[in-house]
């Protein structure tokens, strides 16, 4: 969420009231913005110490979709209307004398399609800047650039002293070698190519260079005399820069996205039109595309939209009339007109150009609810009647967690992301290409999603050196494997794992833990050569480099047979070859000393890990409102 710093005294003056911090905090809370910080105390403190200070500021957090609140002008305007002190302003386009024919024109060259195809502009006439309104103007551009414009990638804004340049203007895209001008803040000419190097070392501009650097052509705006206005999205020219004395401002906006282009030119021109000699007026311009298509920009017409009283009431739980709703909406800067056809139900809302956040009737409904006050809405407990039900997998996990804790083991909660070596090399496991790999981790050790619970458990043992031996820890949680058959190309698998660490390795200890949970799950222990048993589990020696030679085993599970669930191969094995269909669900063993060394553990350890999913119980379908079974015929007597 963007934070906007506003001058406290100026805001009080605009609102016509000196709020206490608490009062203003409450106002913000109700309106849906947040008072983050009041620097008054800080400033007073600095003053006492005789340090240079700025004027006290309020730092206000703004919802990310309210571009109309990114400056003091917008915040004060919206709050005054919310408080009922003003009506929503009517923004007007004022044509130059002579009308449309005399509009300032900008020709857009076809080459711009390769890099930044959309252009819009606006003129603010007879402005009077003060140092603070000037700073606010610059700050709003920056706020828009950082948020909606995604660091100038989507949209870039340039502002110029119109009296230093001569229309018509041309928006072109040229080879950077053929662009040469004095950029803002410099005293000599550079080619665009040179600027790419010069700005490399200027941090505030360096981060925008990538947007156009590798393009064969760079966007550039010229006036009639071939003077550069700006090279979007990097820099304006020194020549046309605005100053405190600028009277007439030309705003250029270039974009890769036409919707955002419109939003930005509307916000910047409507917000600062209040400083024009006739407030809230904007002089439009004509943008002529190479196709011959022309656009008058900015388009600040309201978008008429119908809101329905019944809809708003049905969402809020209120029983308001259309006129009551209209009153609420006006407090949110949404002018309304009564509908002629159905005044009790329909409300014609004229969505102003400063509210691009309104996409749907639900956004209007929200504004009505905010104006009514969320905390004033009637509270009600939903009638929705349903039966609660846990997930089979969660229930199973909880059984394992509880039984193992009762058996004297301690549950731990390591991280799911780990490094490649922790997941593979350190366990003496080759990369089986089954782990999901992360492309852009900020923390370097997060390279893969674990495919085993062991690394986390072993790291926990490592970090708990001071714990008296034996250490007995376990975790039941998910690992992730790649799976090409699934839409998301990966699947979670619920595992249970435990590590025992003591002065002797204790294979039989983790084996006992396995036996215990199988007993609790009513899975009988069967012989590894017993082909006849219907269901059960057994362990069978295996060679696994994670474990000590001769002290490692695979855990096999034979699920109870289910009709019609066997694959052709399984049926063949079972019915023709009389071989049981047993699932390898995990391993246990004494950890190999080289594994212990990698995890910096000085004591022998044994570990068990297996897949829990085959032990899930099927859950019953719930009975819910609307589910009725048709009656059976009555018994015949």
């Amino acid at each position, binding site marked *: 969420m963007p934070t906007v710093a506003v001058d406290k005294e100026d805001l009080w003056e605009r609102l016509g009231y000196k709020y206490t911090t608490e009062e203003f905090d409450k106002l913000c809370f109700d*309106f*849906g913005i947040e008072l983050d910080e009041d620097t008054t105390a800080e400033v007073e403190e600095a003053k006492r110490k005789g340090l240079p200070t700025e004027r006290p500021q309020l730092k206000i957090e703004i*919802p990310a979709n*309210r571009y109309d609140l990114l400056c003091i002008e917008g915040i004060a305007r919206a709050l005054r209307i919310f408080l009922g002190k003003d009506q929503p302003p009517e923004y007007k386009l004022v044509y130059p004398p002579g009308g449309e024919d005399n509009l300032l024109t900008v020709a857009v060259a076809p080459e711009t399609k390769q890099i930044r195809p959309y252009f819009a502009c606006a003129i603010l006439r007879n402005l009077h800047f003060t140092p603070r309104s000037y700073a606010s103007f610059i700050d709003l551009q920056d706020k828009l650039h950082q948020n909606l414009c995604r660091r100038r990638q989507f949209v870039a804004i340039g502002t110029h002293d119109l009296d230093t340049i001569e229309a018509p203007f041309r928006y072109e895209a040229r080879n950077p070698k053929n662009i040469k001008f004095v950029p803002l803040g410099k005293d000599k000419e550079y080619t665009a190519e040179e600027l790419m190097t010069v700005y490399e070392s200027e941090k505030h501009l360096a981060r925008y260079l990538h947007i156009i650097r590798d393009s064969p052509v760079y966007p550039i705006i010229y006036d009639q005399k071939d003077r550069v206005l700006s090279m979007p999205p990097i820099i304006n020219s020194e020549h046309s820069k605005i100053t405190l004395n600028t009277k007439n401002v030309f705003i250029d906006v270039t974009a890769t996205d036409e919707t955002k282009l419109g939003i930005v030119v509307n916000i910047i021109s409507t917000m600062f039109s209040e400083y024009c000699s006739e407030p809230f007026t904007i002089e439009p311009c004509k943008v002529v595309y190479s196709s011959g298509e022309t656009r008058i920009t900015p388009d600040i017409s309201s978008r008429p939209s119908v809101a329905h009283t019944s809809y708003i009431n*049905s969402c809020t*739980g209120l029983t308001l009339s259309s006129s009551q709703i209209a009153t609420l909406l006006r407090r949110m800067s949404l002018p309304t007109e009564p509908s002629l056809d159905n005044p009790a139900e329909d409300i014609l809302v004229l969505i102003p150009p400063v509210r691009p956040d309104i*996409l*749907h009737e*639900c*956004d209007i409904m*929200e504004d009505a609810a905010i104006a009514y006050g*969320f*905390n004033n*809405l*009637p509270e*009600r*407990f*939903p009638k929705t009647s*349903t*039966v*609660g*039900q846990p*997930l*089979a*997998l969660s229930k199973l996990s909880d059984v394992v967690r509880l039984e*193992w804790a009762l*058996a*004297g083991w*301690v*549950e*731990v*909660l390591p*991280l799911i*992301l780990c490094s490649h070596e922790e997941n593979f090399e350190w366990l003496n496991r080759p990369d089986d290409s089954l782990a*999901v790999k*992360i492309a*852009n*981790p*900020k*923390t370097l050790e*997060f390279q893969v*999603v674990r495919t085993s619970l062991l690394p*986390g458990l072993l790291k926990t043992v490592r970090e708990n050196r001071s714990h008296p031996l034996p*250490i*007995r*820890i376990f975790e039941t949680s998910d690992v*992730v494997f*790649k799976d090409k058959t*699934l*839409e*998301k*190309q*990966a699947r*979670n698998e619920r595992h249970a794992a435990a590590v025992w660490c003591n002065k002797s390795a204790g294979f039989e200890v983790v084996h006992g833990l396995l036996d215990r949970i199988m007993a609790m799950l009513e899975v009988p222990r069967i012989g590894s050569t017993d082909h006849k048993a219907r269901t059960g589990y057994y362990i069978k020696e295996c060679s696994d480099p994670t474990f000590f030679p001769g002290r490692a085993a695979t855990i096999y599970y034979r699920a109870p047979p289910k009709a019609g669930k066997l694959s052709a191969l399984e049926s063949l094995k079972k019915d023709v070859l009389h071989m049981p269909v047993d699932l390898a669900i995990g391993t246990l063993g004494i950890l190999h000393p080289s594994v212990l060394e990698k995890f910096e553990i000085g004591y022998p350890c044994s570990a068990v890990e297996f897949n829990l999913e085959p032990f899930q119980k099927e*859950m019953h379908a719930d009975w*819910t409102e*609307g*589910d*009725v079974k*048709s009656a059976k015929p009555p018994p015949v007597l």
Partner: protein
Amino acid sequence: MAEALQQLILDTLDTHGTIRDTRTLVIPGQKEAAASQDAQVSILGALNSLASRDMITYTTHETLSHVLTPEGAQIALEGSHEARVWAALPSKGEGEPVSPAELKQKVGDEAAKVGQGRAFKNGWIAKEGSGLVKLALSIQDKTQLDMREVDSTGTLKDGEKALAELRKRKLIIQRKGQWFAVQKGPSFSTSIAKLETDLTVESLTSGAWKTATFKKYNFEADGIPTNGGALHPLLKVREEIRNIFLEMGFTEMPTSSFVESGFWCFDSLFVPQQHPAREVQDTFYLSDPSVSLPPPKSYYERVSKVHEHGGFGSTGYRAPWSDAESRKLLLRTHTTASSSAMLYKLAARCRGEADTDAVDHADLAHEHGKVLAQTSGGAGSVPSGSVATGQDDGFRPAKLFSIDRVFRNETMDATHLAEFHQVEGVVADKGITLGDLLGFMKVFFEKLGLENLRFKPAYNPYTEPSMEIFAFHPQLKKWVEIGNSGMFRPEMLEPMGFPKDVRVLGWGLGLERPTMIRYGITNIRTLVGHKVSIEGVEKSPAVMF
């Protein structure tokens, strides 16, 4: 030894009637009176044992005495630094003078450094050339003698000034000591009856318990620690919250899909493709695998259309749409990705897909486990009474919840981890309102011990209205943000196939924050991850909100 000491105390009392000062006792096996503090500690043990049988009573007196520091103890044993320096040198003219470097090797750095100065000052040693030699033929190592005196008597005959000097040199420290005056108790006797400490099977069988005298039990002492296991505190809070949902009739959603696509994690929720949450700074994207299979085709088309061109009464975002962005694989940033998939499934019958297994995308059933119970009305079901038209539009109300891990590409600090747990609740029904959401929140959070709630308007791309939930926290004594809630947007629900009049309420909160407040933890890394202390887990109290 313990018994002999007890006997000595009883005998002494028997002879003298009282013991004025236990420091005068000579402990059996010792030659001198028990002046040291260690001896008094042994005597205290004997006194307590006798007092517990009412054989004696005693009063405690405190003294200040001195004990040696490790350095002082070394001096008592090996001599002072200066004496060791002196001893290490040859007498003048009787050998090669010792260079400072050699001296260090002989007596160690510390002794050489401190000892040289003092030995010079005492006139014990002198320089010869670049080396050192003995000057005095014999010396008296006063410091060593002092140390030995303090060690045996706890003080110095030289008095407080000398003691203060030694304290300054950090050779001795002051320690509080105790001694005792002893009188006969009500059950005084010179013979110590053997006391039983516990009721045993032998004494039950023999009947000896009837005549035996039992030792007094020390009710101030701790019991013997148990040796069971323990559950992790965060997961204890998870269980408590799960129980609250189950009490309120919620069904747990399958969330076993850490890997999601941009489509399910964002697009299906009407999060714009240009939203900052989708940037690489905030979300973990995958390099392998990196692209999902296509989502269900017709649904995908409805979703992309509502984003790019609008529809269902919305203008849409009217921003360029990228298939590639939609297909990017990532680690889910919220469990709402799973909720979205469940809601899509819940709407299957509204879309006219009678059997949820026959959705245009068979994988979903596999990925999300069992078909959600609420959707399985079965062939015999009849229209819900709440449907005004009398036609069954296939909708069934649902209350769903999940608590599972989510991932954010954050730099880790005391309050942020790259993975944490999200609690989420969803209610889908017709005729429910924001007022129901408020009511639900009230009941839900009351069960969590938070009674005073306030709601603040907020922005969230998939809910409108969106409300941040604040509570006055009884432990923190201030208003804190505890979660987010709202009503899912029509642009999210209608492309799934829900009828227009279905409203879906949702809310979410982190699991870590209430847990940290519950246990008074300020650093999240002591709660989650491998750096958590096992002992901390063992000692975490139970959770009852």
